[in-house]
């Protein structure tokens, strides 16, 4: 589904990603772990097409299409979703209106009919209920005055409503209480299927307990230094990155 080859990227002239090779087949969930500042968020932004992150080399193909040549909104329409590590506030913009506008933009791109406010609210309320989130989540302004955990839940709500084919979750589990953690995992598991893949960036094994990944990759210094099965995460939890990095060097 997603194939990354030799991807290098820099921010403000400083090289951050130094050659990433990664393939996520359809239906699989891969976890990315790694020390602070190793480039995990950068990878997510580059996949989503953030303009101030310049790609200096390599390729990314998404279902056979050259994704790097596409505008961010075209990538979204193709089914890419990024749950932001730090979700952005949009003052005065009603959350329901925002998600509906986004959903309709994606539907339009697929030649599907747009949802009116009533149809959308019905859908959104059902989703809220499933995710055990309060109704007022839709009435509030996008992320404004949301607690850290509420912002993360709002990312999950958007994801489940937009139904992407490929989701990148950037530390969506950070700052969540135990119950919310399970909700996030449920959100991803609900989308899980042969047509859905995800890249889950996390620092914690506990999310991976609920969301058993097919593969775990360790990103350090802008490179993937190790890949393995779910047991790799457990190993890291016990011994940290130090030993592994020394070994990789």
């Amino acid at each position: 589904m997603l194939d990354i080859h030799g991807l290098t990227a820099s921010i403000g002239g400083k090289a951050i990603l130094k050659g990433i090779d990664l393939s996520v087949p359809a239906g699989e969930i891969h976890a990315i772990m790694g020390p602070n500042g190793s480039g995990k968020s950068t990878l997510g932004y580059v996949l989503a097409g953030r303009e101030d992150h310049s790609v200096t080399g390599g390729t990314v193909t998404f279902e056979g299409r050259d994704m790097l040549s596409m505008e961010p909104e075209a990538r979204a329409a193709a089914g890419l979703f990024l749950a932001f590590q730090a979700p952005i506030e949009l003052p005065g913009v009603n959350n329901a209106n925002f998600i509906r506008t986004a959903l309709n933009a994606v539907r339009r791109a697929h030649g599907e009919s747009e949802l009116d406010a009533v149809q959308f609210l019905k859908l959104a309320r059902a989703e809220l209920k499933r995710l055990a989130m309060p109704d007022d989540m839709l009435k509030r302004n996008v992320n404004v005055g949301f607690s850290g955990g509420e912002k993360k839940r709002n990312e999950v709500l958007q994801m489940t409503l937009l139904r992407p084919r490929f989701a990148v979750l950037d530390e969506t589990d950070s700052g969540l209480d135990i119950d919310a953690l399970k909700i996030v995992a449920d959100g991803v598991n609900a989308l899980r299927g042969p047509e859905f893949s995800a890249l889950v960036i996390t620092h914690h094994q506990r999310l991976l307990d609920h969301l058993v990944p097919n593969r775990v990759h360790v990103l350090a210094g802008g490179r993937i230094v190790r890949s393995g099965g779910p047991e790799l995460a457990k190993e890291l939890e016990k011994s940290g990155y130090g030993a592994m990095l020394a070994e990789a060097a």
Partner: protein
Amino acid sequence: MPADSETLDTVRSVTQSGYKWGFETDIEMDVAPKGLSADTIRLISERKQEPSWMLEWRLKAYQAWLAMEEPHWARVEHARIDYQDIHYYAAPKKKPGPKSLDEVDPELLRTYEKLGIPLKERAILAGVEGADQDGYVEGSGQIAVDAVFDSVSVATTFRATLSKVGVIFCPISEAIREYPDLVRQYIGSVVPVADNFFAALNSAVFTDGSFVFIPKGVRCPMELSTYFRMNARNTGQFERTLIIAEAGAHVSYLEGCTAPQRDENQLHAAVVELVAMDDATIKYSTVQNWYPGDAEGRGGIYNFVTKRGACLGARSKISWTQVETGSAITWKYPSCVLLGEDSVGEFYSVAVTNNRQQADTGTKMIHIGKGSRSTIIAKGISAGRSNNTYRGLVKVLPSAAGARNFTQCDSLLIGQECGAHTVPYIESRNRSAKIEHEATTSKIAEDQLFYCRQRGLSEEDAVNLIVNGFCKDVLKELPMEFAVEAQKLLAVSLEGSVG
């Protein structure tokens, strides 16, 4: 909420068509020679079949104007205006009323069509005989329209329904003839003839406008609306509007403007006077979309307007809501004189400038009555190389014990080359008064745009969404239909401001 998808459609259609309302109508005109003199004023007064007191009033204003100088304190720049190079009177030639729409000048109908006026209303506006007879269905949410087509109100709709409850809604020229006592009592009572340069000019040469009178205790059964259009080349527009709400009366009035694209700068100097008695409420909403000029600012409208409301009665309320997207230059300060005890003044404004547009706008709240209150919410949006200034005065006189004001001024900048300025003047001469002022300036951040685009929105849609969010507190004050229209205008006027 449903306006957003429409907003997007509008953006798309306008991207392809340029200024959507940039059309010009060619109708037989009755035009006075260029230039301003006592004779021009006599000609206007004579064409309007005015009583002699009106002519005298005009001539007095003219004398005052001759002694005044064009003001230059606003943060706007423009080429010198040659007041002798303007036609002060232009009227479509009067013919006997057409029998059906087929007999109506097709140009006029096309103009109405482009303005989006429904067919039935078009017939009434065009003066088709009998078109206004079977008309209005109570509670159907209809809007009465008084179209100012150039300088003469071609027709007025829904008069019958309104007159049933005693509401007068007619061209002011007609009111001067039919209700001289009312007009004489109130005209110039809120904006005196010599109030300022442009008001004096207007008083001397105004050709038409609307007159509204809501009798005691009456809640006007529909929104009253005027479409202003400037049409004849080089015809300055000098509208005069007078709205009187007697004790306990309520009225909501909307002024909407579009104008044809043209090369010369056009001067517009309107005067609006509002009078509210005890417990009366006047809500005056404006969606202003005059031609702003091309990307270099050539050919736009100069909009120099004096709008003022007098809250004469106890607990009276005057609320100004404006969405200003058009004109090359806007110079406009809708104000409230809060004389009545516990009277309320409100000003909600969105002013958008793009390309080379200049706007210097704001309000004045003059607190005289005990316990009078005012609220000011001003949102300025600047894009391109435009300049946007908020200028506001809150004045509390010694008599206004317990007066309160809250002011919120927010500026949003799009791009690097535009300017936003906030100039608040506060004068309080009563210690018990409470005045609060908050101001913010922000930019649409790259990460906000990226967040929206990651969700599938185009950059332009993202800007619209963010701008609409920024203006929400003002837009929600507009009547529903006009809120939708205003959202479209915001999208249209910011089109091309990013990327």
